[in-house]
């Protein structure tokens, strides 16, 4: 019974995030959903270039991926019911993402209170040993 509930919840999160117009226009896809942990990724696209000299994707696109992934992680937490909204999100850009490589994000909701979900995330390209960016944020919870 409980297992059914969890599967239902994961499906709800998957369905919710599959149809967000802005996420779709960036080509984001869900890689996995676990309890309070979500993986998402986004293909390299020359329309998203932020620096023409280096062909590196704009930070804003990486921010969008991390924000979406963090929101999904908050929603997939076992104690969270319904949608969430971002209160604030900070992204540290540690190195430029390599051109022509898919960008993956993994977000974890590490604490959930009555009103707030605390989430952190990491963005990676093919070199998974060195993160491209890291994010930390707070999301509204409850219903």
């Amino acid at each position, binding site marked *: 019974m409980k297992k059914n509930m969890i599967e239902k919840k994961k499906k709800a999160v998957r369905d919710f995030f599959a149809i967000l117009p802005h996420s779709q226009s960036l080509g984001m896809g869900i890689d996995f959903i676990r309890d309070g942990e979500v993986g998402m990724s986004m293909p390299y696209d020359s329309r998203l270039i932020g620096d023409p000299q280096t062909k590196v994707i704009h930070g804003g696109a990486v*921010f969008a991926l991390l924000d979406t992934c963090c929101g999904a992680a908050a929603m997939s937490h076992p104690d969270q019911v319904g949608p969430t909204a971002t209160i604030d*999100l900070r992204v*540290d850009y540690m190195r430029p993402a390599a051109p022509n490589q898919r960008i993956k994000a993994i977000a974890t909701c590490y604490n959930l209170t009555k009103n707030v979900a605390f989430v952190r995330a990491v963005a990676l390209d093919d070199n998974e040993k060195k993160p491209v960016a890291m994010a930390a944020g707070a999301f509204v919870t409850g219903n």
Partner: protein
Amino acid sequence: MVKLSPEPVALIKKRRNEALSKLIESIPYISFLGVGFDRRGDEITAILPFNENLIGNPSLPALHGGSIAAFLEISAIIELSWMQIWRQIEDPDPSTGSPKDLGDISLPKTIDFSVDYLRSGLPRDAYARATVNRAGRRYSSVHVEAWQDNRNKLFAQGTGHFLMPVKN
């Protein structure tokens, strides 16, 4: 010393508009989002015209947090670069007396960016203005405010640090 007659206004405007366009058109992601800029003297306002692709939650509907963040980060980077370009094109070269030519533009790189979502973004146009609070040789600190219908009712604000391009 010979007193120079003032430069014709049309020439000044042309130089400034061309420099700003060159900067904006060099970044594909700006046209992907559809961001435009309004210039009054050295002050620029970024404009994000509403379009369906910017939506996050379609049932509200509200702008996606990611499109808001990207809009703010773009505003900050353009403001920073514009400040540098302004100095370059408006301070005449001492040897020739004419404004320096704008070569290849090297952009600042974001170190970190933090967005405060104050209220949900409505499905309509948004505006943003950035303030450079520290303009250092190595890094700069920029604050951005964004609003929709009311200038004093911000729907998002952001703060970021940027690594400055090395001057040649």
